[in-house]
């Protein structure tokens, strides 16, 4: 039975990818002019890896997009965790800041694009700001949730050992909320990746989002799909990397499961 299950665990994911490819090919057979075959897309990926579009090859476009995401993500992490700790720990600050946050929070990052372009122009800043808006929200939410769920016994124990407020924050509150904060960062990074593509599709000369728009403008459906495949693959790789990082950062949480 155990061996059988092991085989199924390997086989089922392969089957599901195969099913997706079959559907794709069926679509291609019915509408070959607007739906390119998987092989055409692969060929297009190879082509744009070798020959630059808008002065950049595919790896450069990916790096440009990733750079925007990572820059905004780093900024959102620092500010988001700080803001989340203040919101979660200090009752007065919570009363002051939470309503404002709660009103701004539900506005999708994409809805900010016109305003940000008016304010920051069409340069790098506006893309970073849009990603920042998308990334900071899950980080703040998860930090607040983590801080509020800190095990009160740990705080009592720390007090009985003579810990002052700073030490309690550093040695008990922050580490106990870390799994929740890391989960927020995971969400933030995938949200950020979505936001950068949206921003690039509106205005950019490089980046994966730009590739898709270029594909649409030039009627090159293989280029559109190539861009979409890249989005999916990069996003999956980010998730794998973050899961690994999560295990390293919070080993006590992961092994408990």
């Amino acid at each position: 039975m155990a061996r059988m299950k092991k085989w199924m665990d390997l086989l089922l994911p392969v089957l599901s990818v195969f099913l997706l490819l079959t559907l794709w090919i069926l679509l291609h057979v019915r509408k070959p002019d607007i739906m390119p075959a998987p092989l055409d897309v692969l060929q297009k990926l190879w082509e744009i890896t070798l020959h630059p579009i808008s002065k950049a090859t595919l790896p450069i476009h990916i790096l440009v997009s990733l750079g925007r995401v990572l820059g905004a993500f780093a900024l959102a992490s620092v500010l988001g965790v700080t803001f989340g700790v203040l919101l979660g720990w200090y009752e007065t600050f919570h009363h002051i800041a939470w309503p404002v946050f709660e009103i701004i929070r539900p506005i999708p990052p994409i809805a900010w694009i016109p305003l940000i372009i008016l304010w920051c122009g069409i340069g790098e800043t506006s893309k970073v700001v849009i990603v920042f808006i998308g990334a900071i929200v899950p980080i703040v939410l998860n930090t607040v949730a983590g801080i509020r769920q800190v095990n009160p016994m740990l705080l009592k124990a720390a007090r009985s050992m003579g810990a002052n407020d700073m030490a309690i924050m550093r040695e008990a509150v922050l580490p106990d909320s870390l799994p929740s904060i890391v989960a927020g960062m995971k969400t933030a990074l995938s949200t950020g990746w979505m936001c950068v593509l949206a921003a690039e599709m509106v205005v950019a000369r490089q980046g994966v989002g730009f590739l898709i728009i270029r594909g649409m403008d030039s009627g090159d459906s293989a280029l559109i799909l190539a861009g979409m495949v890249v989005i999916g693959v990069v996003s999956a790789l980010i998730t794998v990397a973050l899961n690994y990082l999560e295990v390293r950062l919070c080993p006590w949480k992961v092994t408990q499961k």
Partner: protein
Amino acid sequence: MSLEGNTEIKLEHVSKTFVDKKNMSYPVLKDICLEVKKQEFLVLLGAGRTGKTVLLELISGLDGEYEGTISFAGGQLETKDMGIVFQKYALFPWKTVLENVEMNQKFRGMEKEERIAKAKGYLKLVGLEGFENHYPHQISGGMKQRTAIARAFAGESDIMLLDEPFGALDAQTRWQMEEEVLRIWEEEKRTVIFVTNNIEEAIYLGDRIVLLEGSPAMIKKEYIPDMKRPRSYTDTRFLELRNEIGDDFALVL
């Protein structure tokens, strides 16, 4: 204010009432008067929900809102001046056994080498040599509670408060831990207040047993198990005392 003679902790007419958001009052403790002697092993015995943990929180200063007075031989004591062992271990899951024990003196500002040496000493005392680098989720419940005891002892307070420390352990481990805690106490005498709902545990451990009962809880009776240690569960006087307490022990289920 210091206390006379041999008294370490003195509670005078201590009462505690919780008030909820709808302004409903829930009296938990009423008129508790109690003196704990230096180096005494005092057991607070009571069924579930008789305010034992609340009383311990008042003594430890974790909860400062009550009526009456609590005074100590050592003057004004705060939470940090007492070693506390909690029901559910309260270990830091991201720290190793050694680091957990070390924390007590780290918070108090002791140099690293000194506090590590001290922590190792207390881990040896509770029989956890060789487990220094394990994380709490890698060791058994009994070992977690030993770690918590070592951590509380490492603060070197004269007063130790143990809140149903063996409640979550299986019977076998529980007996072992009872023996262990007596051995540690005899090696390093402190004033101990030990909370439990288990009559046999109370008789096995206590110099004196205080029975809390009712709602709000009051001190119903005191017992002195006048037997030499180690006490035997099958000793005639052990059984007599167990029956006596059992008759007084209203099991409100």
